[in-house]
């Protein structure tokens, strides 16, 4: 009797360990694949998003959904975006995300809306009150990567994909936090009169 019990226990333990190993292997296999080289046709398509006539909101190209919104949900792209934020000097006007000469990305208020296409358009074409156009300085894919990152800074909801960590000390809430309600309560910053009533 006792022998039977220990044998059953051993079998149970072995199969649990086996399941754990297979599970870990599966998790490793499921790892998000990195798309290091986007196909040129897909790249070209990235410029073909549609924007509303007032420059706020619109629709990304079809292929963006077919690729499962890679610039919002892919940790590699978000991390590249974070790198580009420093490389292209966004901090000169937007600080660490809290804003300076340019508006804050952290407060949850978007002068031109929170959609990816609005942010992409802001970066690519510039905006009238002092946001320079980066059309000639970055490739369209980099603009999408950067937009994904900027959107994450002021995200309303936490994402599964996160950027790389900061090497320096944190000066503000991290990008992949759950939304901090109090940050959103301060209200909009730097709204210009022709941008409609304050939200």
């Amino acid at each position, binding site marked *: 009797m006792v022998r039977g019990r220990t044998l059953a226990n051993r079998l149970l333990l072995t199969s649990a360990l086996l399941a754990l190993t297979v599970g870990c292997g599966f998790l490793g296999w499921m790892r998000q694949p*990195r798309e*290091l*080289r986007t196909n*040129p046709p897909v*790249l*070209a398509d990235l410029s073909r998003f549609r924007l509303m006539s007032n420059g706020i909101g619109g629709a990304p190209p079809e292929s963006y959904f077919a690729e499962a919104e890679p610039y919002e949900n892919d940790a590699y792209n978000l991390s590249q975006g974070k*790198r580009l934020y420093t*490389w*292209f000097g966004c901090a000169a006007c937007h600080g660490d995300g809290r804003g300076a000469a340019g508006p804050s990305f952290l407060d949850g208020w978007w002068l031109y809306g929170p959609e990816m296409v609005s942010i992409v358009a802001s970066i690519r074409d510039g905006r009238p009150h002092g946001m320079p156009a980066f059309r*000639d*300085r*970055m*490739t369209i*894919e*980099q603009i999408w990567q950067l937009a994904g990152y900027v959107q994450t800074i002021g995200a309303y909801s936490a994402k599964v994909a996160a950027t790389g960590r900061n*090497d320096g000390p944190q000066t503000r809430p991290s990008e992949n936090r759950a939304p901090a309600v109090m940050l959103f309560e301060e209200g909009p910053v730097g709204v210009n009169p022709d941008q409609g009533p304050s939200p």
Partner: protein
Amino acid sequence: MRMSPIIWMSTIAIISGCTGNQSAINPKGAPAIHIAHLMSGIVAVCTLVWLLVMVMLVWALLRKRSDAGEQARERGLTTTVSAAVGATAVIIAGMTIASFYTTRDIGIPGEAALTITVRGQQWWWQVIYADPDPALTFQTANEIHIPVGRDVHVQLESTDVVHSFWVPSLAGKQDLVPGRTNSLLLRAERPGIYRGQCAEFCGLQHTHMAMMVIAEDPESFERWAVAQRGNSVNPGKPDAVAGQVAFIAKPCAACHTVRGTPAMGTTGPDLTHVGSRKTIAAGLLETTRGSLAAWIADPQTLKPGNNMPMVPLTSVELKNISAYMESLK
């Protein structure tokens, strides 16, 4: 007997890996020579110790059990063990002292003939020949020129992750750590081209993060430095002229500097004299017009994950830009 050709071939293959221009046991610079001496000294001592131990072991296995009394045997054992412990202490102390003196010898001397800054980036080497006069300061990438027989002080920095600077034929290995400056003495006794390689895993393209150290006589070095200090040459041929216009209008100029033009980006290598370098993309390809075109057309296929994006270009733009790059001697 049938195995022997294979053994011979593989031995030859292994030994041939030890000559060439990237080898710690074929040193061509004072620091590397000190290290090679230390290395062969330690290997010799350890070999001797190993042989002694083996001889003792065989002797212990073969000898007859002595018929001395328990006490005498105990005494013999005590003497042997104490002698062995004493010898070990002496040998280890000797090696420690030898390694202390070697470290001292490869340290940075009071004044070096030349100080350069090497900044590791994923995945290339930025090389800055700084001068108190900013007009005389210039940069290269993945290619370091040094005068033969002079002490060169290399300041090592990193912008992203830990890299390691290793030119085995000339010096030891030293890490590049973000947020600090490390120092290394580089010195070549003989002219030549020595290959170096990042020796600390730093991400996807760690394997393709090589550099060339070109040691030349002081006059040639001075001539090279004067040429590098100058602004980029103006393109002469029509395709290169068109290439320059395209280069400045495209995102290239936001990442790369070509002194003498409006291109002043700093995130990629300085291209002012890119055509004069032996290789591009950290030792990946030899610098030819064809390889430049291949690189610019599709950097992510040649070096997946590197930080230069594929910039959409028409075939004419690509041809012109490659001609321009090649003309930047």
